């Protein structure tokens, strides 16, 4: 009897072990973490009727919506076949047959609507039918939403619709209303700017005429922490976006750079050189008390928090060239994470915790972007080609990275999927754009 139990137990153990082994193929894990290949939801945008006085407005709505849905990586935008056409772009158009025909054509979700005016506002009505709805409601019901706002927020209304659609099928808010902070050469200085996630509506945040670098969003999205040059030292300042009010957070002697908010916003980690060389410090953002986390004659900089707030990845040249290290949030248990190549820096932890993106220098001496798992077991180079890529920053959904690159000559801001596909340039004019930072949702 005992023998039998033992055999079964061994059997199970071996089975589980084998299963895990098979499970751990790098490709599988990569797909899971970056979600490049999960089955996207086929969605059809039937169209929006234009009830406005301005030509092309409804067309704009459709274009913005399709771009948002494509970027979400949750949907595949499919052009609906001719057999699915609506006589009227309103809720009276719905019938069960329409959705059945859509499903037969491989579409899982249909969206349509109309854009109207109610002075001084725009009115955006949207309707959705999908499998969820046809199972749970009668044939005459659709899912609907009406947004009302001034013409200046039309893009925001559509972004909001896209985020609602992502939310409906994933339970997570989409990223269409997120923002990207960055640095631009402007008026003889480097100034902070904030733009929509798709590169629209850049707004200037600082106007000092000198150096402002490395903006980082507070988790509540109210502030940017950044490095500013003042009195022959680099300080870390805070700016409140809605008011433009500024405070100095760190004014210790020397260089204070690379601020990084803890996930709960309670602590700001940064690199400072007040004690002689660049070390990592942690400041309590309420009491302003500061604690030193690293102690090494080499330079320690670029801290980045794990999403749990328990660990910090950072760059250090304690081993010669810069490499990525990980330590506990109290500075304990320092371990080196990167070993491939002689120049690995600017680590940034993904919002899901599964990857750390960083700048890696290739054998051809080019700065490119790489991913490494926090256990160091998997490493991938995700950009290639000409130019230097740097300053990676994750989207809050963990499906994209924004970064700066000189691939087109001048330094611009780009976004891409985390597997390196769908690279999209976000900045157009200007001479120099750098240090992008993606806002929280």
């Amino acid at each position: 009897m005992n023998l039998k139990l033992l055999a079964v137990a061994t059997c199970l153990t071996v089975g589980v072990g084998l299963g895990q082994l098979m499970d751990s193929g790098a490709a599988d894990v990569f797909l899971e973490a970056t979600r490049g290949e999960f089955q996207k939801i086929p969605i059809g945008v039937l169209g929006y009727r234009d009830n406005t006085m301005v030509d092309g407005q409804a067309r704009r709505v459709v274009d913005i919506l399709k771009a948002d849905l494509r970027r979400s990586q949750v949907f595949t935008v499919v052009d609906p076949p001719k057999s699915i056409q609506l006589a009227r772009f309103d809720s009276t158009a719905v019938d069960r047959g329409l959705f059945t025909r859509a499903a037969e054509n491989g579409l899982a979700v249909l969206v349509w609507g109309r854009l109207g005016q109610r002075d001084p506002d725009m009115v955006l009505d949207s309707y959705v039918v999908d499998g969820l709805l046809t199972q749970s409601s009668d044939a005459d019901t659709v899912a609907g939403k009406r947004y009302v706002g001034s013409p200046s927020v039309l893009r925001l209304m559509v972004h909001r619709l896209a985020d609602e659609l992502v939310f409906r099928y994933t339970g997570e808010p989409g990223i269409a209303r997120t923002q990207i902070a960055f640095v631009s050469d402007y008026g003889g200085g480097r100034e902070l700017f904030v733009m929509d996630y798709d590169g629209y509506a850049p707004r200037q945040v600082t106007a000092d005429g000198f150096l402002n670098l490395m903006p980082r969003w507070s988790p509540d999205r109210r502030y940017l922490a950044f490095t500013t040059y003042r009195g022959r030292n680099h300080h870390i300042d805070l700016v409140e976006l809605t008011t433009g009010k500024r405070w100095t957070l760190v004014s210790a002697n020397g260089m204070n750079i690379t601020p990084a908010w803890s996930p709960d916003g309670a602590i700001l980690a940064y690199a400072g050189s007040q004690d002689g060389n660049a070390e990592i410090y942690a400041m309590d953002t309420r009491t302003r008390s500061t604690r030193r986390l690293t102690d090494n004659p080499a330079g320690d900089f670029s801290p980045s928090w794990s999403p749990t707030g328990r660990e910090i990845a950072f760059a250090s040249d304690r081993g010669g060239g810069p490499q990525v290290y990980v330590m506990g949030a109290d500075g304990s248990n320092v371990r080196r994470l990167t070993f491939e190549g002689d120049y690995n820096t600017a680590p940034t932890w993904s919002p899901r915790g599964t990857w750390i993106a960083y700048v890696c220098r290739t054998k051809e001496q080019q700065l490119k972007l790489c991913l490494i798992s926090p256990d160091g077991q998997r490493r991938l180079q995700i950009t290639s080609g000409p130019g230097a890529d740097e300053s990676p920053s994750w989207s809050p959904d963990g499906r994209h990275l924004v970064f700066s690159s000189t691939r087109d000559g001048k330094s611009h801001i780009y976004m891409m999927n985390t597997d390196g596909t769908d690279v999209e340039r976000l900045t157009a004019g200007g001479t120099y754009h750098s240090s992008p930072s993606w806002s929280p949702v």
Partner: protein
Amino acid sequence: MRQWYSVVCVTGVLAVTLLLGSACSKKNIQATADAQEGKAPVVAKLEPPGVPAKPEPQPPKITESPSEPPAKPEPEAPKTAEAPPEPPASASKSEPLTGFEPTPKGAAPPEEPVSGGTVVAKVEPSESARERVQEMQQEQAAKTTADVAGTQLEDVYFGFDSWKIMERAKQTLELNATWLKANPDMKLTIEGHCDERGTLEYNLVLGEKRAKAVKHYLAELGVDAGRLHVTSFGKEKPFCHEHQEACYQLNRRGHLVGRAQ
């Protein structure tokens, strides 16, 4: 008997393997699947609002509020040198999503107002900022150290990714030290600069190492270290903008800026 167990065992192994295999391939295609490891929260849950600034010129307590409604105008906005006081229009946090509502045939969907988005205050440099910038820009405008009012200081240059003082630089610094000792009223800012072939952050650190190497060498030569201030501009203030080695060499520099005390 033995054989029987091994047959069961092999079958069991296969079954469990298949089960696990299917479970994880399913994970791969679930749009809603959360991160595999440990279901760690995407971002830690945050406490409800702390309060924005009190009516005193103190920095705000940084609250961990994700869900704060648009900020009300504060009783008295703290004034700082840099910031023109303007009433906050709304918080920059995006409005939470509410989901779609079932809408009967022919009816208008439920209405939701949309406004604001991420409001960013208009920026204008204040007078003090303008003065400060002017001072900084004057210092910077001097492309070579010799430009700065009557000094005879010369810049020193570095090798790629190095902060070692090279032989030629040693000679330059000896001359600089002699001049500095003869002009005890001059203070010196040593700026470390780098070429563009490194990351922004690494180059700031590297530039500081270069500036410090220059400072230490001058101090060894007998210049009072108290007169020497170091700073770094990394690759942010290049002297030369071409993408070639001749230019890179000019940008790997310890730039010496003298100023009267």
